[in-house]
Structure formats: C-alpha cells, structure tokens
C-alpha cells in the first residue's frame, strides 16, 4: 500500500487535520503580527491580517464543521467557505494595493468600510452564483485573477527592492497560490476532481501558508 492509498483510506481524518493545520497556521500568523500591528497601526498590515483571519475561518467552516457536524447541509457550508475564501483573497490583494485607493484615515473598521464593502458584496455574489449553478468556477476564476495581480505586484515590489530577501519568497508564494488555483480549476473541469490531484493541491496549499509563516517568524524573531 503506497502513501497515496494510505492517505485516501484515511481521508476524513486527514481532512480534519488539514483544516486544523491551516487554521492554526492562520491563527498563528494573526497572533504573531498582533504586536507590530498595534504599534504601527499600519493599514497594509491590517488588511494582511484580515486575509489570514478569513482563510483560517474558511478552512474551519469547510472541513471541521463538515466532518464534525455531518448533519449540517453542505449547501450551507460551501457558500460560507467560498465567501470567506474569496474575501480573504480580496483582502490579501488589497494589503498590497491599499495605498492606491486613498483610504480615509477616519475609517475605524478594516473589516467593513467604504473601501472594502465591495469585497463583501462581490464575495457574496460569486459564492451565490456558484451555489445556484452547482460549480466552483466563479471562486476559481476570481482567485486566479486575484493571485495573478498579486503575483505581478509582488514581482514589481521585488524588482524595486531586491535587498529585502523575503520579497522574493513572497513573490514565489503568490505564484504558488496562483498555480494552485489554476490546478484547482483544471482538476474540477478536466479531471473530475481526481483525488490524487486534490491531495497534491492540499499539500501545495499547506506549503503556501507555511511559507508566509516562515517569513513572519524570520522577521519578527529579531
């Protein structure tokens, strides 16, 4: 029995471990950046933290609630998962671009304000469209566009300031996430959700979150 067969045989348990691992990494990212956010009150950092807060919630909602509370209908869990994932992607992109939108200094909430309300509306619309049409494609396409732009911005930041070593890792992380969403789309449309491909997507996803966590640990340990 090879490793893939073992994994597939225990997939329900592994889904919970996977969800817990990503949620814990996200929680750690939010906690680890709390002090520097409170000291700096930097808006980019605030939106960056929001992104990982929503990623953490999304994985808790999808896998933990889905497995621990199987009576909860998946037609409820999936739209919530999609809404949170799409929202997290928007916040991550906005953390890189917020300066261009002249955010008002008087905005007290970073979760809902005049600039980010559009993210909530778009996330709700996309999640509802996917639910109504019974696909995941709107989520996949939105994430591909988001991470395509995020990769371009991350590359531009890296080329402008190559002395900051993690900028290269961040660019790689954005590319990794872009590849992951393209792979997700291909798996759904061409490979009928092939389990081995989904397993590899899961591994890539964990690598993405670990890469971000690595950068945070490396910078904040100084």
């Amino acid at each position, binding site marked *: 029995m090879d490793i893939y067969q073992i994994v597939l045989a225990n997939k329900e348990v592994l889904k919970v471990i996977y969800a817990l691992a990503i949620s814990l990494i996200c929680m750690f990212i939010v906690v680890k950046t709390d002090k520097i956010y409170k*000291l*700096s009150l930097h808006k*980019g950092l605030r939106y960056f933290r929001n992104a990982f807060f929503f990623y953490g919630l999304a994985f808790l909602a999808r896998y933990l609630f889905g497995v621990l509370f199987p009576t909860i209908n998946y037609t409820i869990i999936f739209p919530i998962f999609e809404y949170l994932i799409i929202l997290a992607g928007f916040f991550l992109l906005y*953390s890189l671009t917020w300066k261009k939108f002249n955010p008002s200094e008087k905005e007290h909430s970073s979760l809902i304000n005049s600039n980010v309300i559009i993210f909530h509306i778009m996330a709700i619309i996309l999640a509802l469209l996917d639910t109504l049409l019974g696909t995941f494609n709107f989520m996949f396409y939105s994430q591909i566009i988001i991470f395509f732009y995020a990769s371009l911005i991350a590359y531009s930041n*890296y080329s402008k300031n190559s002395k*900051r070593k993690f*900028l290269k890792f961040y660019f790689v992380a954005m590319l990794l996430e872009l590849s992951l969403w393209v792979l997700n789309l291909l798996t759904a449309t061409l490979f009928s959700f092939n389990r081995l491909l989904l397993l590899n997507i899961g591994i890539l996803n964990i690598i993405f979150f670990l890469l971000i966590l690595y950068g945070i640990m490396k910078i*904040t340990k100084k």
Partner: protein
Amino acid sequence: MTAKKRERLEVIKDIIYTINKNHEIKPTRLLYASNLSPQMFKEYINELIEKKFIQLEVDEKEKKFFSLTKKGRDFLQEYKMIESFIENFGL
C-alpha cells in the same frame, strides 16, 4: 532633486524619535523638528496622543511639553522590525 515624501509610519517614527532624544520637548520645538505643516503636525500629534504613544504634560511653570509613554518607547524599539516586516511583505 526633490525629497521623497515620507510615509506615515516614518513621520510617526521621526516624531517619537525626536521626543525620545530630547526626553521631553516643547510643542513649538517639536513642530520645527518634525518638518510638517502646523495642520499636519496637529493631526499626527492628536493621533499619537489618542493612541497613547505620547502625552502632553504641563510643568509647575504652566509650560507644556511632550513626553513618551511606554507604548511610544516600545514603538521605537520595534520600529526596525515593523519597517522590515512592511517592506519584506510589500504592504
């Protein structure tokens, strides 16, 4: 050559650094040292007082001066790390 516009965080660091260097400083001297317009200076100072980074005190001769709070001193110590974080993640 025009000087690069300072980022908000850099302005805050400069104000807090100046107060720390002088231990305590009169508002007019801090305004000159900050290199900001009076309007901008007022906005930054109000924010820093509101967020408890600095405090405005009055001595026995009724003279006003600014001093740092513990949060302000913490900010100065952590500034390099904050700057490094923001630049490394391109935020």
